[in-house]
């Protein structure tokens, strides 16, 4: 691997850009294939570039044989992102656990007393309203959003924005009763029953979680499950065809 390749992979991560590194195993020649550009020794090989983009689509690294040569396609997709709305007690457990699970974690809360770096060491903290922060960050298909404030003023706009994006997971803290009331409020701003059904509420797997840390485990268990099923579904047609 060339030093420039290493630097390019790191840059792609910072920009949350997907890239496939194609390496010809015989001689170590490399090509970096992005969604809309290509660079490196193998940039001129159309078959390799096309295979690299295919691997990127399903997010799966693999070794392929092209023109009698073995080529390894290593797919680097941006890490999944977790946005926690509400810099509350549960968030203080959820943020470090999610970081350990290799999520790129951001905590959003407009309330200055809560949204402090001290309460969330090593995690990005944005002191702003969620819908404004979302606009800045750009919600994508590798993002999960969890609302924890219990306050409709803060949670509702966040849920409304998340529902209008293609994030892979939306969870909202609150009892069944709270969740039913939430449904009525969101209906007033045009969220249909079908859209509302995307929200996991009450949030998390039903494991009898009580403490903030236990609730964080139940939420992350659910996020892991939803994400894994989605990736399985994406990979399935390809596996069937192979």
């Amino acid at each position, binding site marked *: *691997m060339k030093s420039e390749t*290493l630097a390019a992979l790191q840059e792609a991560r910072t920009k949350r850009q997907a890239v496939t590194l194609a*390496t010809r195993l015989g*001689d170590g020649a490399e090509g970096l294939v992005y969604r809309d550009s290509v660079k490196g020794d193998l940039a001129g090989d159309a078959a390799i570039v096309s295979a690299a983009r295919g691997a990127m689509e399903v997010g799966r*690294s*693999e070794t392929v044989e092209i023109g009698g040569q073995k080529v390894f396609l290593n797919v680097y997709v941006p890490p999944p992102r977790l946005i926690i709305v509400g810099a509350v007690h549960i968030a203080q457990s959820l943020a470090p656990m999610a970081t350990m699970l290799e999520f790129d974690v951001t905590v959003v809360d407009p309330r200055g007393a809560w949204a402090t770096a001290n309460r969330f060491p090593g995690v990005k903290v944005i002191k702003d309203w969620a819908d404004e922060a979302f606009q800045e960050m750009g919600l994508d298909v590798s993002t999960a959003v969890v609302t924890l404030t219990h306050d409709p003023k803060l949670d509702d706009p966040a849920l409304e924005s998340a529902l209008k994006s293609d994030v892979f997971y939306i969870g909202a803290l609150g009892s069944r009763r709270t969740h039913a009331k939430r449904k009525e409020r969101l209906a007033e701003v045009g969220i249909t029953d079908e859209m509302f059904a995307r929200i996991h509420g009450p949030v998390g797997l039903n494991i009898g979680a009580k403490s903030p840390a236990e609730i964080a485990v139940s939420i992350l268990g659910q996020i892991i499950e939803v994400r894994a099923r989605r990736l399985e579904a994406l990979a399935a047609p390809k596996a069937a065809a192979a």
Partner: protein
Amino acid sequence: MSDALEVLDQVGKWKASGKGVAVATVITTWGSSPRPVGSQLGVDDSGEMVGSVSGGCIEGAVVQEALAAIKDGKPRLLDFGVTDEQAWDVGLACGGKVQVFVEKVS
């Protein structure tokens, strides 16, 4: 942070500090191998490691090959599996097979 990129971060730091560095990558797996395709192990010229290509079974052997790659600059393709006697010795006890590509960072 995805673990592959965490490995590359450390590899970048080693490289920037003037060390010889190699990267080993799992490129094919069969059966119940412990780490998925794309998993990486970074190795510096003193044998320091970051990341993993197995549950700890074959790292020792991979590090030896990585050190050799740092010296001669040539990429290597390694096969480990229960059918391979050397692999059994280094202990891929889970019964899977893996193929690992080792290359120097130039």
